[in-house]
């Protein structure tokens, strides 16, 4: 049986209501699975159930190396990082060695073991700081280092990047990626952001309403939405009904692949007529919302195209969709 963490017939209930049902899931050692889902899909519920940390009623089995493992074994093997970094009183160093201390290691030994991780994640300048005086980004970095320092066989990450600004997040993602590379850790990252999945995970599972809808290699899953819900989750937010395209089935398209037809382009793209509703400057791109008879469409133009090139709000425009796909 392959090593790693998994579950069989895992179900979580709040009272009588079923929050989550995962018949079968396995993450091999050395691999990372991203569980992608919208808010309230049951992502944290899944993570906590796998880590034996749930307050809810859980049925089914959590498997370590293919076998149900007793709690004491799981406790030593699994480490979880929660969404909000929760620091103990004390220095950053004291926080980083917490997991090792829980495993019975003395202070000195724990510090020696943790030091390479402190260096790998660039925490040396912070080691003697009071952990409660850290910024949220620094605290999350400490929280992740604290988990890695244990050398866990299974690492569970519950949206650890969600509260961070984009620069901090990109740095931490890169450092975590480097730290995990080549290690025999089975990692599960729960997130609502597909870019994090792309950056960190070989495999991705889409979790919607407590069920895994799709599961496979990340690049494949992210580009093959199977239904309207997963399409929205994966950024295919423009729905093109058969009435709009003249085809037989609904197509989905990314806003990046949907532009306002400003000139006389004539190629094999779909062209739809509508009314310009609003424009929003996003800095690196400009978002343009258009109402069509078959529902709203969102266009995303690179750069700032406001003012000069755009027709006024409320005027009739044509939208050009040059890449769309059917739901597989």
């Amino acid at each position, binding site marked *: 049986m392959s090593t790693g963490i998994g579950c069989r017939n895992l179900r979580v209930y709040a009272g009588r209501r079923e929050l989550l049902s995962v018949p079968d899931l396995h993450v091999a050692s050395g691999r990372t699975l991203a569980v992608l889902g919208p808010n309230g899909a049951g992502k944290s519920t899944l993570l906590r159930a796998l880590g034996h940390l749930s307050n809810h009623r859980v049925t089914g089995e959590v498997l370590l190396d293919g076998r149900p493992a007793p709690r004491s074994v799981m406790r030593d093997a699994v*480490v*979880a990082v929660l969404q909000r970094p*929760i620091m103990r*009183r*004390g220095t950053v160093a004291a926080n980083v060695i*917490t997991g090792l201390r829980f495993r019975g290691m003395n202070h000195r030994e724990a510090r020696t073991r943790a030091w390479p991780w402190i260096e790998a994640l660039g925490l040396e300048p912070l080691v003697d700081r009071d952990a409660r005086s850290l910024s949220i980004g620094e605290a999350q970095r400490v929280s992740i280092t604290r988990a890695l320092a244990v050398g866990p066989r299974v690492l569970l990450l519950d949206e650890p990047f969600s509260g961070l600004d984009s620069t901090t997040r990109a740095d931490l993602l890169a450092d975590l990626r480097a730290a995990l590379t080549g290690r025999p850790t089975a990692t599960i990252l729960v997130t609502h952001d597909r870019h994090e999945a792309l950056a960190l995970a070989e495999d991705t599972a889409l979790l919607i309403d407590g069920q895994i809808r799709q599961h496979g290699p990340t690049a494949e899953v992210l580009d093959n939405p199977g239904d309207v819900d997963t399409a929205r989750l994966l950024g295919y937010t423009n729905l093109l009904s058969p009435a709009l395209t003249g085809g037989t089935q609904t197509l989905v398209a990314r806003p990046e692949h949907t532009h306002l037809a400003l000139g006389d382009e004539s190629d094999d793209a779909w062209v739809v007529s509508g009314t310009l509703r609003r424009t929003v400057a996003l800095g690196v791109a400009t978002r343009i919302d258009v109402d069509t008879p078959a529902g709203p469409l969102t266009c995303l133009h690179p750069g700032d195209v406001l003012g000069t090139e755009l027709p006024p709000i409320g005027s009739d425009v044509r939208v050009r969709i040059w890449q769309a796909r059917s739901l597989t």
Partner: protein
Amino acid sequence: MDVLLDGLVDAVRLLLTGDQDSWSITALTLRVSLTATAIALLLGLPLGATIALARFPGRRIALAAANTGMGMPPVVVGLFVTVLLWRSGPIGGLGLLYTPTAMVIAQAAIATPIVVALVAAALQQVDPDFRVQMQALGATPIRAFAALLGEARLPLLAAAMAAFGAVVSEVGAAQMVGGNLAGQTRVLTTAAVLATSRGQFSLAIAFGLILLLIAFCVNLSLTLIQQRQTALR
């Protein structure tokens, strides 16, 4: 003004010479109040932790009851304990009324709600996911709870100080269930009341000063523990 000044001078002289009676009264005060505080901590810590952390029906009512209990007049507690221990009362057969044990019972009853309410408040201040995160790092549930107590140690020690401060300074319950019997159940507060009523102001002031000194010493040692751990951060 003279009364006060003379009283103070006399009081200091009394303290410095220190007769047998004052010492035994002081010792009894310490014994009764420290025992009562210890019992209150023993009962109040698990109760307060349960109210703070567990989810059960009636939890908020229990918390409201403890908060109300914090302001309960010692005289009321004294009355209940007296009725309980009265010769014809439910446990009157034990013959505890007018003994130091009765005073410990009454003072523990005063201090327990204080400990419960302050412990619950102390533990609720910590992030609700604190124990989950500790367990997620490999702590057993017991270890995670211990870590939580460590996290809240400053307000927990404050709870202990508040409990001791409340019982060492109360006079109503000690008077009612102890009876202020010389050499048996006389403590500093009841002795001070008696001395005052007899017009022995310097004696009363002396007892008052000892009381202050005890309260200060106990709180000083707890504060030192509290702040030593803060410095270790």
